[in-house]
């Protein structure tokens, strides 16, 4: 419950120039996109686009500009445009990012900005990959609350501390930036992958859930948590700032604790 705050003053003096603003600088960039048009060519190739962009533009804006003004065949997924839907994970300058959350001004605009599809999932077209294997792994860890016993008539109680334990992993938007940055996942695609483990973690550590054991058993598989080699690519790629490797470590500990 939030505490009662004193009324803020009716009038304050604003600092000069408050709220940013001023002229938005513009600059030229080269966007180097890895194209793949399965109906036209057998292989992927790089294509450069020259664009004039503004200081507040994101990589997604640059892609839109290409699609809307230069080449309508350029294909990519996107929806919310502010980093909450998970549609547009891609490899930007060699690292997994959300295009809508990566500001151009934060990249080195003197060099071409490379954009390519995320790695390790079947490529469909340009920046679009087949997400089904990814979601399949997610579905396999039973990502839903399972509780035994009587349903309470009102809500189940949960202390704020218990709620806090799994807070981090509830933030996942299933963008696949983590799983497709994992060197182990790239190898044969059999590894459950960090995203599935993150979502298992979300339930394993939820005090209201009773099926943690089953999920631990699933992840104790040869393709489960033990394949993680703690390379931290996932943690660094996660656009929601989830401590993915930490969550994986906690799941490993939980499996150990339950057997030993």
């Amino acid at each position: 419950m939030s505490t009662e705050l004193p009324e803020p003053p009716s009038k304050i003096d604003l600092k000069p120039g408050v709220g940013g603003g001023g002229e938005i600088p513009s600059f030229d960039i080269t966007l180097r996109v890895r194209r793949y048009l399965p109906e036209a060519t057998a292989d992927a190739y790089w294509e450069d686009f020259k664009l004039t962009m503004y200081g507040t533009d994101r990589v997604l804006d640059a892609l839109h500009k290409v699609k809307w003004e230069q080449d309508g065949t350029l294909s990519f997924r996107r929806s919310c445009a502010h980093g909450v839907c998970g549609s547009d994970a891609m490899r930007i300058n060699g690292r997994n990012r959300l295009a809508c959350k990566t500001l151009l001004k934060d990249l080195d605009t003197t060099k071409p900005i490379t954009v390519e599809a995320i790695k390790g999932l079947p490529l469909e077209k340009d920046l679009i990959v087949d997400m089904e294997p990814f979601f399949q792994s997610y579905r396999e860890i039973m990502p839903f609350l399972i509780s035994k016993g009587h349903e309470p008539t009102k809500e189940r109680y949960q202390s704020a501390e218990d709620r806090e334990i799994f807070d981090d992993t509830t933030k996942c938007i299933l963008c696949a930036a983590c799983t497709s940055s994992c060197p182990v996942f790239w190898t044969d695609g059999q590894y459950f992958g960090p995203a599935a483990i993150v979502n298992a973690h979300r339930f394993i550590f939820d005090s209201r859930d009773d099926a943690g054991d089953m999920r631990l058993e699933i992840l104790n598989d040869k393709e489960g948590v033990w394949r993680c080699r703690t390379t931290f690519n996932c943690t660094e790629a996660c656009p929601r700032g989830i401590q993915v490797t930490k969550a994986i470590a906690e799941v490993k500990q939980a499996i150990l604790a339950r057997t030993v």
Partner: protein
Amino acid sequence: MSKTSSGTLYRGHEGMWSWVGHRVTGVVIFLYLLVHVLDTAMVRVDAGAYDAIISTYQTPWMALGETGLVAAILFHAFNGLRLILVDFWKQGTKYQRQMLWGVLILWVIVFAGFAIRHLSIAFGGH
């Protein structure tokens, strides 16, 4: 998967490169270990033969190789300890990067100590 999906190399951070290093050093050490057990087994066959083989280790070129091997073992060992901390220490994942720098510093110091002593023996001769 089709070859079309390959593109640039993934630009991982420290964590990924340390893993590459750990993996490569692990394999190198393993291969060396196979050979090392075989050559040591010569002590069971013939003392002269063993000495002959060992003397090849004492040539400057082998000494350099030996130094490289020790470098690999030192890195693998220190980084291995870091990985163990990442896995078992609560704050491990938070400080993994700092620990990697620690590993590298320790590695440089210990390796320098070793290299000076070892190479001076190997090249210094009797």
